[in-house]
């Protein structure tokens, strides 16, 4: 711990100024340093034991084959086997492709719908308590329970959609079991699930725009489309970025809904990286290759996050250069 002498002096000076008689310097100022080490220690312990150590183990496992023999894990370094297997793994290729498609399509739709809803809410000045409650529920309710709800919605015999379809005279669909509809069905669940989140973030962003800007724009004869383009969007830029990045990070991890609704099927139509990795690890009992795939996900995520920050600082620099 590096002790900041400037602050200590200023603190003592300020203490000295209190009252006419020179007050005793509280002993606790010195003892504080130990107090602050002690209060941070539990968090650091947890972060080391359950955060850093497992990551080291993950790297080690990802480079080895690990087998369970007589209740003992037997390790053997074998990185090349995993690399060869990865390059000839059509399921992983599909899972990789599907994850990217899933993240891009659902996050785009969620941010667009969320923006629309936030603008609608702002236009109607004050959203009803009922709507707010309806918007918060999908975010807070157990994803497993939500998946059960959608399993029943999509059920080919008596699900909500097919009851609607058949009463309209249309043929019933087997939504989750057909290649063409399985992925769109999953994306629809995610859009339903997370559009409210984008809505919340963007609503907060909208309230930070000064009303006077719109008024003076209206006086200058700007159309509402123009003031949306020149006032709303520039002000919302950071909220839009936050909503998209938050959603992308979480969408990348998607597991519960796909695991329960399709299990990755039919075929590999909805296979994503988390679901495939979990299956390789537990059903395949392939601890080494499973860890290798998990490690790959971490590296991919890291690359995306660093890439995002690089692009963002690049954009900032471009803005500064222009100004």
């Amino acid at each position, binding site marked *: 711990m590096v002790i900041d002498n400037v602050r200590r002096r200023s603190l003592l000076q300020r203490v000295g100024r209190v009252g006419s008689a020179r007050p005793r310097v509280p002993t606790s100022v010195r003892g*504080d340093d130990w107090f602050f080490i002690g209060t941070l220690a539990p968090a650091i312990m947890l972060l080391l034991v*359950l955060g850093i150590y497992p990551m080291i183990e993950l790297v080690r496992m990802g480079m080895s084959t690990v087998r369970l023999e007589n209740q003992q894990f037997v390790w053997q370094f074998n990185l090349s086997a995993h690399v060869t297997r990865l390059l000839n793994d059509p399921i992983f290729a599909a899972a990789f492709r599907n994850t990217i498609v899933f993240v891009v399509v659902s996050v785009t739709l969620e941010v667009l719908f969320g923006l629309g809803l936030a603008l609608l809410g702002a236009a109607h000045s004050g959203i009803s308590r009922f709507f707010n409650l*309806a918007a918060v529920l999908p975010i807070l309710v157990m994803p497993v329970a939500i998946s059960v709800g959608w399993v029943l919605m999509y059920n080919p015999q008596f699900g909500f959609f097919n009851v609607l379809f058949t009463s309209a005279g249309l043929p019933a669909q087997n939504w989750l079991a057909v290649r063409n509809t399985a992925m769109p069905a999953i994306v629809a669940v995610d859009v339903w699930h997370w559009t409210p989140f984008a809505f919340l973030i963007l609503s907060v962003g909208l309230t930070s725009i000064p009303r006077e800007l719109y008024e003076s724009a209206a006086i200058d004869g700007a159309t509402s489309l123009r003031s949306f383009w020149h006032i709303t969007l520039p002000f919302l830029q950071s909220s839009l970025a936050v909503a998209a990045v938050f959603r992308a990070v979480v969408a990348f991890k998607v597991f519960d809904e796909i695991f329960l609704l399709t299990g990755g099927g039919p075929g590999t139509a909805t296979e994503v990286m988390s679901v495939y*990795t979990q299956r390789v690890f537990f059903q395949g009992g392939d601890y080494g290759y499973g860890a290798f795939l998990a490690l790959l996900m971490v590296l991919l995520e890291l690359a995306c996050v660093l890439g995002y920050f690089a692009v963002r600082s690049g954009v900032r620099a471009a803005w500064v250069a222009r100004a």
Partner: protein
Amino acid sequence: MIGIVLLTPFAWLLASSLKYPRDIITGHWAFTPTLSNFEAVFGDEFQLKPNFINSLVVAVLATALTVGVGGLAAYSLSQGRWAKRFKGAMMLWLLGIAILPPIALVPAYYLIFTTTRLYNTKLALILVYTLLNLPLSVWMLKLHFDSLPREFREAALVDGSGPFATLWHIFRPLAAPSLASVALLAFLFSWNEFLLALSLTSSPAAQTAPVGVAGFVQEYRVAFGPMAAAAVWACIPAIALAIFAQRRLVAGLTFGGVKE
């Protein structure tokens, strides 16, 4: 109108949970409601009582630990004389945990907990959930502590209040709104979490509610009524908290957006 679209899946789930099997299979809009499914979930056939009790124990203890460990760490990082660079590194470390895909923790946890005999225990889940809740709690509480005037602490020290008494009697009440947000979100996260619970438990001794509810989808493919009822039971904490503590929850959920 859009609110109704958002609630449709919940309404369908609730309707299914109230139906007799014959009403489910015909898919009629009108039906005679029954509560038998809600009892069946905890009955001899499905036996989900231990799962829900485990969930409650795990979520309550993980929440308590999250608020305790996270609150102390946030106070230390906000008020302690740590070097700026050290504070920055700690916050970044926490952010890293927050964006880590949970599947990345599964392989190592499975091995570590198996060899330490913590596999299939509630303790393992409690510790893991505390870790995963730590980033939000430290970030949110640190920013709250940061926003309070420094003079509070200095005045308390001059008055001879010990460091812990200062934290407890001055900072804890002032940060109460953020503490409530953190506690609510930590509870719901721990109650809802599925992937790690599925991967680190194997019997009713430690399996939580989501694992039990998911079992319906995988095993009892035809027991739609009890399946829906189990899901409705699992929704209850979130619905109750959404109704009674909506403002605190939204404050927590939009925390990242406000911060940026």
